[in-house]
């Protein structure tokens, strides 16, 4: 073990003097995370929409709009709704910038709905607030569509109600009235488990570049062989497996240090929220193990440093894409999400997702940690066994 530690310390000293390693391990992932979160993280800012609402109908249905979807988005804290008296006031509010869009319930709206005629809601939007207008239009359309659904259901039910008692008809009407609001805005309470955009990019860049950092260990066996120092290590009075172990320890330590720096830097400088420190630490240890295992296996399949570097790069990029380190796989087909869990990246990001709730703890990441360790131990065992053959010529 002493020899392994001496070799690991020497490797770390070499790596720290090699600025390329520092760039790959820390600067590049942090820089890219900062750039991505700056460019793509804008949507994360809380919405602050302003709407005007004019109820020219004054009926139960028009009240439903006010009390349903509009109250919902106000309660969620993403919009304020100002009541105005008429269409002109609504238009004026939009034109003067007091509101980004206005919703107008025209007179006769309820009558039109109950008569089966075309029911129409009016939306006035500012040309400068397309996003806010789209949201309001979407709310209105959903509400109208839902009303239409209810109207059709009642219309279909009525022929069978010829002989029904007034009480049954009244019950039907009550049930129709009590139908769920067409738009529901869920509270994003403290238990919601989803990383912020900044945390996502920091984590995904960290795990992506970890695959380049972790490969240094076994790859350095190839470079030591090329530069002639490997025979000198083997000639020393140490067991050959100490050399492999030393390389693995050096690589592991470098991976841990790089990840720790990235977690700290992204938290302090970018505002990333990684979650429970103990859980993150265990997740990082498991991720480094997985990255080391895979890169050790890939490296030992190669014959030269260049070949190993190329193969590791291809594997790192492929796994990162499959694992959702470059884009959120929830936006894609379900099959992609399922496939992603063959990669350490997906498990790492999943683990951080699970840790992002305020009451999350290390217990929550047991499955991702087990998966990462499983990947690392299986591939690492094969890789390190093969690395032994790089050390001693047979």
């Amino acid at each position, binding site marked *: 073990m002493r*020899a392994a530690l001496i070799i690991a310390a020497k490797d770390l*000293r070499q790596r720290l003097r090699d600025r390329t390693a520092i760039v790959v391990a820390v600067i590049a992932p942090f820089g890219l995370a900062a750039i991505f979160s700056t460019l793509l993280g804008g949507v994360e800012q809380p919405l602050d929409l302003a709407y005007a609402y004019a109820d020219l109908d004054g009926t139960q249905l028009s009240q439903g709009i006010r009390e349903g979807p509009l109250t919902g988005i106000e309660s969620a804290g993403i919009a304020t709704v100002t009541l105005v008296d008429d269409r002109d006031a609504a238009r004026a509010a939009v034109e003067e910038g007091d509101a980004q869009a206005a919703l107008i319930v025209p007179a006769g709206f309820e009558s039109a709905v109950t008569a089966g005629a075309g029911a129409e809601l009016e939306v006035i939007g500012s040309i400068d607030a397309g996003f806010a207008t789209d949201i309001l239009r979407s709310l209105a359309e959903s509400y109208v569509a839902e009303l239409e659904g209810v109207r059709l259901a009642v219309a279909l039910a009525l022929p069978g109600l010829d002989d029904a008692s007034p009480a049954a008809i009244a019950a039907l009407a009550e049930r129709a009235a009590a139908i769920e609001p067409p738009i529901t805005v869920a509270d994003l309470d403290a238990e919601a488990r989803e990383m912020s955009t900044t945390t996502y990019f920091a984590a995904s860049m960290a795990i992506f570049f970890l695959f380049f950092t972790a490969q240094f260990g076994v790859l350095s066996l190839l470079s030591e062989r090329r*530069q002639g120092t490997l*025979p*000198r*290590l083997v*000639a*020393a009075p140490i067991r050959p497996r100490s050399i492999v172990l030393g390389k693995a320890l050096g690589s592991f330590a470098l991976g841990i240090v790089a990840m720790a720096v990235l977690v700290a830097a992204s938290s302090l400088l970018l505002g990333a929220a990684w979650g429970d420190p103990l859980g993150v630490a265990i997740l990082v240890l498991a991720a480094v193990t997985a990255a080391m295992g895979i890169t050790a296996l890939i490296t030992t399949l190669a014959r030269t440093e260049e070949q190993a570097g190329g193969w590791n790069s291809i594997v790192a990029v492929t796994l990162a894409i499959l694992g959702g380190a470059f884009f959120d796989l929830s936006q894609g087909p379900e099959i992609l999400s399922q496939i992603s869990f063959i990669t350490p990246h997906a498990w790492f990001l999943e683990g951080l997702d699970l840790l992002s709730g305020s009451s999350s703890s290390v217990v929550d990441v047991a499955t991702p940690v087990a998966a990462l360790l499983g990947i690392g131990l299986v591939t690492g065992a094969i890789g390190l066994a093969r690395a032994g053959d790089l050390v001693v010529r047979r």
Partner: protein
Amino acid sequence: MAASLYHRAMAIEQATAAPVLECRDLRKSFGDRVAVDGVGFSIGQSETYGLLGPNGAGKTTTISMICGLLVRDAGSVLVGGAPLDVNAVAAKGDVGFVPQDLAIYPELSARENLRFFGQLYGLGGADLRSRTDEVLEIIGLADRADERTDGFSGGMKRRLNIGIGLLNRPKLLVLDEPTVGVDPQSRNAILSSVESLGQQGMAILYTTHYMEEAERLCDRVGIIDQGQIRAEGTRRELVSLIGQRDRVDLAATGPLVAVAEALRAMPGVNEATAHEGGISLLVDEARTILPRLLESAAATGASVNGVEIVEPDLEAVFLHLTGRALRD
């Protein structure tokens, strides 16, 4: 010269007494290609043994098995009486290895390189510090000790490469063609260092394809070709295999015919011929007999102005044994 001859005689005597290295019947094949085929020899304390052969003869494969870098197919290696193989930790500690390549870390300073390998050889604390300083003095890098080695000249790197092999005060120092690609000045410095180490009592295994290095440094030489030791012995013993003798040309004045006759009567002198400007002799061992030749020539009235010794070299021996030149 006399000291060197004395050293060689002592070395050979000690070699036969208690071998530091004893390897027997080493064999190694790579696929169908037989790289080493039954190589065996021994080296005693203070003895410098040369493995002389062309590139691809099996020198590096042989020393790779001796140093435990390569798993052998057959044979045995004993260092100080202890078996040595890939996993023989204790026996490896008695061997200093200087590979042909520059086995140093360019990102580290000379001192850091020495300290790292010193630690691997079990040195630590004050012993490591003092031994590192000693070796830096020996290799002449004390004033550049803390500079990164990627700024060193080729010669400095070569010296450091050798210095690392000396850190553990080895019983056996193995040098694999340490002068390949070295400028003449550095080469001479390296050869002087090896001579000095041999005189200090270290057993040395030196591989080379330079005949003149083997002749200068080695007490005994094993001529290796196609994985086999073709012949082994002192230079004199090897030369005697091909029946050639040393020629000594004395540039002299005086009664040259009478002087030649007197010299011819000396033991070890096979022929002495006077000619205009001097005397030519065929002798058994020129370097040994030369002082007595000069003494006798002076005693019989000759005034010797110059001496040239022409010895049959190992190149001729190699050619005789293999039918090829060393550099073919």
